[in-house]
């Protein structure tokens, strides 16, 4: 593992300097540092979610349009367990276990139901969870949502480092998965399921594996979301807007690549910045318009995502 991590860093020397800057960043004492850290934390969360989506959709070719279901379920289970005043670790594990169960079902469905039809099933599942969280007031308190007990509060610096570590771990994990047998099986399923079958690939096994890995990753982000935001409401985690943002990060960065979602974070930072400057008051809505325009322009001119800029340069050299 250590050797692999070293190889990965050596193979991607460009990562080292930004990584060191990020590690040192919270030590700088300036007024807007809190704002910067929050901005980075939000984009880290979306990068991680996009990486998780990337496993299913980018590698395995299973277009999940209900990815917020994994994320939201993770967040809800985490906060429920925390409200029982158990250790955080238990909360995270319980959330991951619940997601594994859901992912097993989704994976099993994906063997039978393909393409756009699979997308619809995941969409329906996410909507089901949204309505459940809104209506099952006895457990979820409905639209008011749940609040994390005070004792689990963490300061912003710690949260930042956790987010940074999680992102680094996810990127590295995705890299390892892509290089491993699992990654090869995933992309083979995406490219041609019939041929993969004839070469001895157990379709059901690997699709369920992809679903479970992806769901556990999203679940971890969900748990982190609870620690960071300290509360959960249905619209914040279970709506299609969340899924859409995840997909946008992956697409804008470059779908099906390891580094793409990292670049896609740019779009989230942009979104948060515009909202920070223009949001609220009588201009609510304006940030969303600008964001939408930028998104459409990026995709119109760089259909393969931001990563294609770097690829293009490498080829020219």
């Amino acid at each position: 593992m250590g050797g692999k991590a070293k190889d990965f860093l050596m193979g991607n020397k460009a990562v080292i300097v930004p990584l060191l800057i990020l590690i040192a960043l919270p030590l700088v004492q300036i007024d807007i540092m809190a704002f910067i850290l929050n901005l980075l934390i939000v984009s880290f969360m979306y990068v991680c979610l996009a990486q998780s989506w990337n496993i299913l959709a980018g590698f395995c070719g299973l277009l999940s349009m209900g990815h917020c279901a994994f994320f939201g379920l993770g967040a809800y289970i985490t906060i429920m367990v925390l409200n029982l005043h158990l250790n955080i670790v238990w909360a995270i594990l319980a959330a991951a276990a619940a997601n594994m169960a859901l992912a097993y079902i989704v994976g099993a469905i994906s063997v039978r139901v393909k393409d756009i039809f699979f997308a619809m099933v995941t969409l329906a599942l996410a909507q089901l969870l949204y309505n459940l969280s809104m209506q099952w007031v006895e457990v979820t308190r409905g639209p008011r949502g749940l609040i994390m007990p005070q004792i689990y509060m963490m300061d912003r610096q710690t949260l930042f480092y956790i987010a940074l570590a999680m992102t680094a771990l996810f990127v590295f994990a995705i890299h390892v998965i892509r290089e491993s047998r699992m990654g090869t099986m995933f992309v083979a399923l995406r490219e041609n399921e019939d041929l993969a079958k004839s070469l001895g690939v157990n379709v059901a096994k690997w699709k369920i594996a992809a679903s479970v890995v992806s769901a556990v990753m999203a679940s971890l982000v969900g748990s982190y979301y609870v620690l960071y935001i300290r509360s959960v409401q249905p619209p914040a985690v279970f709506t299609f807007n969340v899924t859409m943002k995840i997909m946008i990060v992956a697409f804008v960065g470059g779908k099906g690549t390891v580094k793409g979602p990292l670049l896609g974070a740019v779009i989230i930072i942009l979104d948060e910045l515009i909202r920070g400057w223009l949001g609220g008051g009588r201009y609510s809505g304006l940030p969303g318009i600008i964001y939408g325009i930028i998104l459409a322009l990026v995709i119109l001119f760089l259909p393969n995502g931001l990563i294609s800029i770097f690829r293009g340069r490498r080829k020219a050299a």
Partner: protein
Amino acid sequence: MFNLDFPSVMTILINGLCTGGVYGLFASSFTFQCGSLNITDFSFGSWLMLAMYLTFFMYTGWQTGIVPFVILLFLCYFTISFLISRFMLSKRDEFTNMIITMGISLIIQNAATLLFSSSPRSLGIIERTISIGGVQIMQTRLIMLVLSAAILIGFHAFLKRTWTGKTIRAVIQRKEMAYLIGINSDRVKNVAFAVSYVMLSASGIMLIVLFSVEPTIGGFYQMMSFLICIIGGLGNLKGAFFSGLLVGVLIAVLNMMSSQFAMVLLFLIFAIILVVRPRGLFALKSRS
């Protein structure tokens, strides 16, 4: 069990059916885009929302009169969607189209928030009811059902009888072949896309008569059109209309059974149908 006598049950079912007619109309328009033109349009719900808003303001503020307004709205939707299809969607792959329409959806939704505020608005029409043997039928809803069916039949006739409709069908079936016999496939696709938007705006006008509108409502209609269109069999216009009716009735029944979990049950049923019959209840036989 529910303490309901026969006429009240019938009342609920029939009014559900009538609402379902409007669902069926916009789902048909969506299934035409998604199944026949291969454009997965994520801005569909937002355009529907916008049409609802415009109709709302026509009623309450502008006083233009219904006929000039409808004609103007149809023209606007036709032109705008033609331009979107021509300059943004055509000749791109499915995924790119998805993201572009998502961007358009964001723009419309946020523009609505900016211009119309995020509070819900409704026309608040008090519906007159016709009573037949104790069964109360809401008049407006009945008119909506009839209108939806009429528009769909009209669209069907347009595809079957007119020259433009025939070329559209030719392009849908064999794009390259149509090109070879001298049909400009891309332009025909753009026109077809624009026609589907006229149907969309018509359903927007009807929806505001029945329901309230807010900027985020587009997401709900987007979801409903997706699911109804899949259940009806992708690309099957009639199937989409009938599953729209089905969903209207289903929602009414579920609401009657448990208003708390009606939507949960609805999406559970959607998921189960999709798993058991992945190609939908009325799948086209030609697609294998």
